[in-house]
């Protein structure tokens, strides 16, 4: 027999003005199993809570119903009070007789009757409540950062500086990402390498950071605080401990004509190479696809010249398994591929290049040592056209979003061009100039006013070559849409920023969701911008959406704080209102039949497979199991389960069934 206490709150006059609280307390006090009932002016006040606590002790209550405001308001208050009085907090329920009753109905008997009904429902529900304990999950205080661009670097350093271990995985032979390819950065025009490389070195030297370059994440298992990750370290064909990074091998390699990815095809590199001079780690890798030895079976020039005998042709990929408590995704973005723009001749005409290629041309360490030269004949372009929104904001091309960074870098390109080619004429075709940001609008103004860049508002319809010139045809919509043709020497397309190659596969590997453009999805667009729907996995930088450097860094620091907060306790405490699959004595084990139709409804991948084995270790049954660390308690699986093998604490089948019965049968 239950001993339930009912506490009806007047909320000053907020409730009692339309509900007869004394009557509610009296009538509900007569319900079966109610041991004590009372009404009080302000239940949430200190005396009100004291009243509650003392009643629990005095009447040895085993369940409490507070009829007051919305549980969304004061449920935590009263559950805490119960806990302080020694009653399990999950044996306390609230009836919402203010927002759902007194405030929305007039003063009459029906309103009081409704309040009684609402209390009765909770009295019956609380009889089915179970004492629950918070779920404790241990936390491995090591973070995995996937991606070594500026976002990954920032996140790794911030976490490491909080005193936690960080494992960084980078796909390329060096960290640095796209930022290391940039020439100068808007709006201050400081040199990208100059501000980035100290950070890269800091990562390499930080005692808390372990760096795996030329590596990829293959498998992620587990859940918040307890991930198990397999990392494939691709073979560099090199003993990194022996290599001193002298670079002799890279100068002697007979293969010299491989398009250099770092220069975006504007330069060449050998088969054994360091991607760029400031690379971290500054040790070469052998590109096996292009290495003469791996193709033809002989060469080995690098091995011969290596002073420390560090070359290892037979080195194999290595799989490293690590345990981490949190993951930061910072895998960045990519730009559109050439075949996207047949009308712009990108990929067809050598002098139609993309923004990243222009960055390399403008970079002092680039293929032209910072001189603006056109790729076809090396001449200095005297007339140059920049096309903003090349692909972006174009529903016909399937990219409806704004790539956000192009307005600014295009203004920067025009400015850099003008600084380097004084007698040159830059044109910018644009749709809108989106220069929201500190000093951004001023920067664009400078490009237009001081550097005399011709901004033409309109889209380019086509670009074609004629007599050695690139004819750029568009319309000037501010001049009444008149057609405009420019005979340019070079064209730079501000190609749309798109999700990185392999983003979809990675999202599936780490179990995070992604949007229709394959950018990783945040848990809430406003209030949880660096969290994902998978607890313990966070986002930093342009893997989420196109972002500029300051935004990427801010997001990275945000993600790092989330990781640090997670790591601030040895154990994670979670609300126990989670789903569970029932257990029964052998040989049934559970009424779950293992159809796993519930698996795909779970937004959190919390439903796992559990194999029941006999003494010989043979699997005799495979059951679903809810991982308490991942379950967020939505209960969609509960409603789906045909055998009612899954139930959920707090909203159990027994509880909701009883609520309906109580509500409709007075």
């Amino acid at each position, binding site marked *: 027999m239950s001993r339930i206490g009912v506490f009806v709150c007047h909320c000053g006059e907020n409730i009692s003005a339309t509900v007869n609280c004394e009557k509610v307390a009296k009538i509900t006090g007569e319900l079966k199993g109610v041991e004590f009932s009372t009404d009080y002016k302000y239940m949430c006040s200190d005396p009100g809570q004291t009243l509650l606590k003392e009643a629990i002790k005095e009447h040895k209550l085993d369940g409490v119903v507070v009829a007051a405001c919305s549980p969304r308001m004061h449920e935590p208050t009263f559950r805490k009070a119960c806990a302080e009085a020694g009653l399990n907090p999950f044996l306390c329920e609230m009836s919402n007789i203010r927002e759902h009753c007194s405030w929305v109905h007039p003063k009459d008997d029906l309103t009081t009757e409704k309040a009684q009904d609402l209390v009765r429902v909770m009295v019956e529900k609380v009889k089915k409540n179970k004492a629950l304990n918070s779920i404790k999950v241990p936390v491995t205080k090591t973070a995995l950062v996937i991606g070594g661009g500026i976002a990954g670097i920032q996140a790794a350093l911030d976490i490491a500086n909080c005193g936690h271990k960080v494992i960084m995985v980078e796909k390329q032979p060096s960290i640095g990402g796209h930022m290391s390819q940039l020439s100068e950065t808007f709006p201050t025009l400081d040199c990208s390498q100059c501000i980035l490389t100290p950070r890269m070195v800091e990562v390499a030297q930080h005692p808390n950071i372990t760096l795996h370059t030329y590596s990829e994440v293959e498998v992620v298992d587990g859940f918040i605080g307890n991930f198990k990750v397999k990392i494939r370290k691709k073979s560099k064909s090199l003993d990194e401990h022996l290599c001193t990074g002298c670079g002799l091998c890279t100068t002697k390699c007979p293969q010299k004509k491989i398009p250099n990815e770092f220069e975006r095809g504007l330069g060449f590199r050998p088969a054994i190479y360091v991607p760029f001079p400031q690379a971290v780690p500054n040790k070469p890798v052998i590109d096996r696809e292009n290495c003469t030895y791996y193709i033809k079976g002989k060469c080995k020039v690098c091995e011969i010249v290596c002073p420390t005998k560090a070359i290892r042709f037979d080195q194999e990929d290595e799989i490293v398994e690590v345990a981490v408590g949190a993951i930061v995704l910072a895998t960045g973005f990519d730009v559109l591929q050439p075949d996207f723009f*047949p*009308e712009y001749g990108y990929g*067809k005409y050598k002098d139609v290049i993309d923004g990243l290629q222009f960055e390399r041309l403008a970079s002092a360490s680039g293929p032209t040592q910072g001189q603006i030269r056109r790729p076809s004949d090396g001449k200095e372009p005297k007339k140059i056209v920049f096309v903003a929104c090349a692909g972006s904001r174009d529903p*016909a091309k399937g990219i409806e979003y704004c790539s956000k960074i192009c307005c600014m870098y295009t203004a920067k390109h025009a400015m850099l061009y003008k600084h380097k080619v004084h007698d040159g004429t830059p044109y910018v075709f644009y749709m809108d100039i989106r220069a929201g940001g500190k000093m951004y609008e001023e920067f664009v103004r400078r490009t237009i006013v001081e550097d005399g860049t011709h901004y033409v508002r309109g889209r380019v*319809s*086509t670009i*074609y070559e*004629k007599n050695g010139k690139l*004819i750029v*045809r568009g319309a000037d919509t501010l001049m009444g849409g008149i057609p405009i043709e420019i005979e340019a020497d070079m064209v730079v397309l501000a190609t749309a920023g798109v999700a990185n190659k392999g983003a979809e596969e990675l999202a599936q590997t780490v179990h995070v969701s992604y949007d229709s453009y394959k950018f990783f999805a945040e848990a809430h667009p406003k209030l949880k911008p660096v969290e994902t729907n998978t607890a313990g996995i966070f986002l930093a930088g342009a893997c989420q959406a196109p972002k500029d450097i300051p935004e990427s860094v801010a997001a990275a620091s945000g993600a790092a704080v989330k990781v640090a907060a997670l790591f601030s306790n040895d154990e994670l405490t979670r609300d126990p209102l989670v789903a569970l699959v029932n257990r029964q004595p052998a040989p049934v084990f559970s009424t779950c039949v293992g159809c796993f139709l519930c698996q795909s409804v779970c937004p959190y991948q919390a439903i796992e497979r559990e194999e029941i084995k006999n003494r010989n270790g043979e699997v005799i049954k495979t059951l679903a199991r809810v991982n308490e660390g991942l379950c967020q308690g939505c209960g969609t699986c509960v409603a789906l389960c045909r055998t009612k093998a899954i139930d959920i604490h707090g909203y159990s089948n027994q509880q909701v069934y009883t609520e309906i019965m109580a509500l409709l049968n007075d």
Partner: protein
Amino acid sequence: MKVGFYPGCSMKGGAREYQESVSALAKVFDIELVEIPDWNCCGATAAHNLNKELSLSLPARIMALAEREGISDIVVPCAACYNRLSIVKHELEADKSLSTRVASIIDLKYEGTTQILNIIQFIDKYITDRLEEKVVKPFDYKAACYYGCLLVRPHSILKFDRVEDPQSMDVLVKKAGGDAIDWAYKTECCGAGMSVSRTDTVARLSGNIMKDAVDRAAEVVVVACPMCHSNLDMRRPEINKFLNEKIDIPILYISQVLGLAVGLDAKTLGLNRHMTEVNLPVKPVREIPVAKEPKKVVNTQKLEA
């Protein structure tokens, strides 16, 4: 093989050679073109400027008639007619109540089951596979394929291969043995219906098209639209006056190009009907790479004007 055929007004008038060449080509490939009985005007530009229901009902009636005849595919060689029919089909598909309304106006059952094919889609569906084996006189010329607007736009409805830089006519010309050049005016405006009212505008727009083609050494411009054809062909004196040049390269329909390649004679294809004389230079014979039995070698490519 039977395919429905909608000629529209131009096939019966200014572009008779287009119909003649399409029919001749179809015959070579054993395709029977069934003219839709009692067909009417597609409404052209006029109807949809005046009355929405009229502009929907005219093409709907054509398609309804085809349905009644059990025709599943209609080839519509005129790009303007093709455009109207396709857009109406799309609009009626998207709005069932409109479709019901239109059916009551035309007093015919309209299901929207017929496929509307432009000339290129028609060739791709029924001819391309067998084209190369039938080529006896490779069309060995530098050809500028001009698509114009009505064939390719709006892209969201017509879904032509690449809206800004279409390719499919180039592919056909190449299959016929030609050299489809890369040029810049594939989809630029020819001046269209301004032909009569503003001949000067047409001279300028079509002039730019012809100039670029000739500058890139095109020997012929290939089209798939009677309107484009008339502007580039019939307005040649005005074009030449505007350009202050003498451009004399011919404008051929894609059906004529393929017709020549499969060995049809000039008269059958109606080449004599063009305003600008079709005077393609005779080229030295190129060996046709044929795997099976060697084809008859033709020494001269004689064109009767």
